[in-house]
C-alpha cells in the first residue's frame, strides 16, 4: 500500500483515470481514491456511450469532418451562449487528439449505435459502452503502477494558504490522512445528494431519480466551497431528462429512457396536458421534458399512446401498461378516468389531416384550436389497445462546480492553489453554464483530466 504517493487523484471515473494515466506516464507515483466499491467503480462514466470529437477529416470510426467552428456553434446553440468560449475551444480542439490517445490506452470505438444515426458524424461510440472504457483505463493504470483504493471516501482537503496540505478519507471503517505533493479532484457533481438537490430545487427534488452513480454526493465539492475555493455555476442548474417513472432511484442509466413522447399525449396527475409533445424530434427535447415534469404536481407525467404508435420508437426496459379503453388505462395509472377520457377526446377532436404523418421528421401534422397545441405527429389516439408509461425527472449531473483555468488549476480569491487541479463533471460548470451537448461531458473529462494529470505531475516532479 502506497503511503507516500506524489499525487492523489480523487474519483474513479473518466476524468480521474485520464489524469492518473498522464501523471503516471510522466513518472509520478499516483494513488486513486475511489468512493465506490469495485463493481460500481467509474461513476457516471460507466453509463456513457460516446464522446463528441472534432475532426478535420475521417478519423477512426468518424466519417467526414466535424470542424472546430461547427462544434463551437453547436455548443453555443444549446447553452444559449452561457459558455466560456476560451475553455470550450480548448476542449474542442484537443478532442481530436484525444481519440487516438484513447485508442492507444485501450478504448475501442464503433460506428454510432443503431437508433442514433444523427450522431454518426459527431460522436465516437465506445464499443461496449462507458464501462468497457473504464475497464480499459483501469487495466492501463494497473500496468503503469497506479494504486487504486476502492471504498475510499474523501471527506476533506486541508487548504493552507495556497496549498493543499492534507487529504482526509474514510476507508474500511477508519479515517486516514495523506499528504501528497499534488491533488487532482475528479469526483463529479453533487446530484446524488438529494438533500443538496432539495436545497437548490425545493421539495420537488425528493421525487427526482438519479440516472447515474449514487456516489457523486459532492462531498469534496462542498468541502472546497466551504474553504472559499473559486466556484462557478448556478446550484439550481442541473441536466435532467424525462425518464421512465419506474426506473430505480439510482444508476438506472440509459435503458430508462423513453422515446415515445412525440407520438403521445402526456397528461399530469390531474389528467391534463401541459406542453406541446410534438415540438421537436425527441433527442432535442428530452432535456426540457425533465424540467417540464419537475414542474407538475408530484413531479410525474403520464404518456398515452395507441396501438398504431407502439413500434415507432426504441423499445424501453419496462413494459407499458396496456388496456382496451382509455378509461381502463387511466384507472391503471391511478388517474381520473373521466378526466383523462375528456382530455383524449378533446385532443382527438383537434386532430386534422394525418396523411403526411412521418415519424422520423418534423411532419407538421398538428392540432388546431387546442391549448397547448401539438405541432407535429398529432394523430388521434383511437386504436386499442392503449398503452401508458409514466415519466419522472431523471437528473444526469449538476452544473455548480470548481472554477478552473486553461491548466485545470483551481484557485481562491487570492490566486491559484499551487497544487490543486480539477477535471470532469466537477469543473464542467467552468465551460457549460447551462444546456448540454450529447457527448461533451466525456470530452471535458478526457481533455481536462489529461491536462490536470500532466500539470500535477510536472508540479510534483519539480517539487
Amino acid at each position: 500500500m502506497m503511503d507516500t504517493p506524489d499525487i492523489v487523484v480523487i474519483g474513479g471515473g473518466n476524468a480521474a483515470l485520464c489524469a492518473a494515466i498522464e501523471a503516471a506516464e510522466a513518472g509520478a507515483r499516483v494513488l486513486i481514491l475511489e468512493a465506490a466499491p469495485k463493481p460500481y467503480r467509474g461513476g457516471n462514466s460507466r453509463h456513457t456511450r460516446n464522446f463528441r470529437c472534432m475532426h478535420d477529416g475521417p478519423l477512426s470510426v468518424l466519417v467526414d469532418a466535424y470542424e472546430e467552428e461547427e462544434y463551437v456553434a453547436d455548443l453555443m446553440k444549446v447553452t444559449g451562449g452561457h459558455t466560456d468560449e476560451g475553455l470550450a475551444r480548448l476542449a474542442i480542439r484537443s478532442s481530436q487528439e484525444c481519440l487516438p490517445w484513447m485508442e492507444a490506452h485501450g478504448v475501442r470505438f464503433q460506428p454510432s449505435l443503431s437508433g442514433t444515426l444523427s450522431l454518426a458524424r459527431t460522436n465516437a461510440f465506445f464499443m461496449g459502452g462507458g464501462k468497457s472504457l473504464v475497464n480499459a483505463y483501469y487495466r492501463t493504470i494497473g500496468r503503469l503502477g497506479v494504486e487504486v483504493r476502492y471504498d475510499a471516501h474523501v471527506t476533506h482537503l486541508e487548504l493552507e494558504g495556497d496549498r493543499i496540505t492534507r487529504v482526509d478519507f474514510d476507508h474500511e471503517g477508519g479515517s486516514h490522512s495523506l499528504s501528497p505533493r499534488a491533488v487532482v479532484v475528479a469526483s463529479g457533481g453533487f446530484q446524488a445528494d438529494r438533500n443538496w438537490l432539495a436545497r437548490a430545487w425545493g421539495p420537488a427534488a425528493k421525487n427526482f431519480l438519479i440516472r447515474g452513480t449514487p456516489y457523486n454526493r459532492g462531498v469534496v465539492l462542498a468541502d472546497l466551497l466551504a474553504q472559499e475555493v473559486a466556484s462557478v455555476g448556478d446550484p439550481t442548474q442541473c441536466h435532467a431528462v424525462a425518464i421512465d417513472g419506474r426506473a430505480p432511484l439510482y444508476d438506472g442509466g440509459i435503458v430508462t429512457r423513453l422515446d415515445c413522447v412525440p407520438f403521445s399525449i402526456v397528461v399530469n396527475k390531474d389528467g391534463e396536458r401541459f406542453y406541446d409533445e410534438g415540438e421537436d424530434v425527441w433527442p432535442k427535447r428530452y432535456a426540457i421534458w425533465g424540467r417540464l415534469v419537475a414542474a407538475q404536481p408530484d413531479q410525474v407525467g403520464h404518456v398515452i399512446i395507441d396501438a398504431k404508435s407502439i413500434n415507432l420508437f426504441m423499445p424501453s426496459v419496462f413494459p407499458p401498461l396496456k388496456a382496451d379503453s382509455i378509461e381502463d388505462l387511466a384507472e391503471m395509472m391511478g388517474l381520473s378516468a373521466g378526466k383523462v377520457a375528456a382530455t383524449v377526446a378533446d385532443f382527438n377532436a383537434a386532430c386534422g389531416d394525418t396523411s403526411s404523418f412521418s415519424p422520423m421528421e418534423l411532419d407538421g401534422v398538428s392540432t388546431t384550436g387546442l391549448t397547448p397545441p401539438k405541432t407535429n405527429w398529432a394523430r388521434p389516439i383511437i386504436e386499442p389497445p392503449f398503452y401508458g408509461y409514466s415519466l419522472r425527472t431523471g437528473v444526469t449531473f449538476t452544473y455548480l462546480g470548481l472554477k478552473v483555468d486553461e491548466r485545470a488549476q483551481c484557485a481562491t480569491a487570492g490566486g491559484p492553489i499551487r497544487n490543486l487541479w480539477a477535471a470532469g463533471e466537477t469543473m464542467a460548470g467552468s465551460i457549460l453554464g447551462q444546456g448540454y451537448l450529447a457527448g461533451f461531458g466525456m470530452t471535458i473529462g478526457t481533455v481536462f483530466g489529461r491536462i490536470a494529470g500532466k500539470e500535477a505531475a510536472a508540479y510534483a516532479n519539480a517539487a
Partner: protein
Amino acid sequence: MQMQPEFVEEARRQAEICNACRYCEGYCAVFPALQAERAFAEADLTQLANLCHNCRNCYHACQYTAPHEFDLNLPKALAELRHDSWDAFAWPGGLARAFQRSGTMIAAACVLGFAALFLAARALPADGEGFYAVLSHNAMVAIFAPAFLLPLLSLAVSLRRYWSHVGGGRITLGHLRHAFGSAAKMRNLAGGHGDGCNFEDEDRFSQARRQAHTAVLVGFLLCFASTSSGTVLHYIFDAPAPYSLWSLPKLLGVPGGLLLGAGALWLAALKFRADPELGAPRAWGGEMGFVLLLAFVAWSGLGLWLLRDSAALALILALHLGSVLAFFLLMPFTKMAHGFYRLTALVRDAQRLEAR
C-alpha cells in the same frame, strides 16, 4: 421439445434490457439479431443462444451486472438456454441431458469403449502388421462405420428439429458461404474489435481462447483428413497401414494430433481459470469431460505411433480406439454438438440478414 420455462423467461428478461441499451452491439452477431426483434418468442431466444459463443465481453462491459438490481449476466442466461435447447432437440432424447452435464458419464462411456475394444481385440481376428496385428482392418470398420454414421444421423435429426423450431427457410449457397465464412475466420471470437474475448481473466481481452479453439479445430480436421487419406490409400491404392512418416496419413495425422492434443489441454486450462458462473454451471463438468476426452484421443493416438514397436501396443490401441469410439458415439450429446448448432444458427442468421 420443450425448453425449460425458467431459462426462457430469464433470457427474455435480459434480452429486453439489452434491447433498450444496445451498448454491446459491436461485440458479436447476437446483438444485431436481438435488436431486430421487439418481443422475443422462445424460438428467437433459442436462436440468440446458439449465436452466442460465451466470450463474456458483454458481461464485463455491462453496467447492470450484480449487485445492480437488473442483475444482467447475458452469457450465463444464453448458455443455460443453449444447453437446454441441445437437451431438447437431441435424439434419442435423454442422452444429451446425461452427457452434456456430466464429465463422469463421459468418463464412464470411455471406460466402456476401452472394454469393448479390449474384448474385440481378444475375440476378433487380426490380419496384418502394426495395429492390424492386434485388430483386423475389417473388424475396425465393422465397429467404427456404424459408430460414425449413427451419430451423424442423430445430429441430422437434432438439427432438423432446431431448424423447424427457429423457423428456418430454404438454404442457399450464399447462406452457407456466410456461415462457413464466419466460422472459419472465427469472426465472432475476435470480439468485434479484434482484441479477443474476456474469458479467463475478468475484463482482460485475450486471444487465448480463439487460438486454442483454432488449434483444436484445425488439429481435429487434420486428424480426420489423415484417417480419410488412410481409407483412400487402403481401398483405392491397396496400401494398408502402417504408413511411413512421409506418407499422407502421417503428414496430416502427426501435426493434427499435436495441435488437437495441445489445443484441448490449453482449452481445459482456460476453462479452469474462467468463472463458471458466467457460463452454464450445470454443464461445466460435461464440457470439461469432453475437452479432456479430445485431449485423450489426441495423445493416445500419438502414443500409438511412438510406441508402435513396443509390447504396450495392444493396450494403447484399445485405449485409443476406445476413446475414439466414445468420442464418436457421444458426438450428438456432448459439447461436440455445439459446432453443428452454431453453424446452423449462423445459416439462419444469414437468412435474417438477407430478409432485412
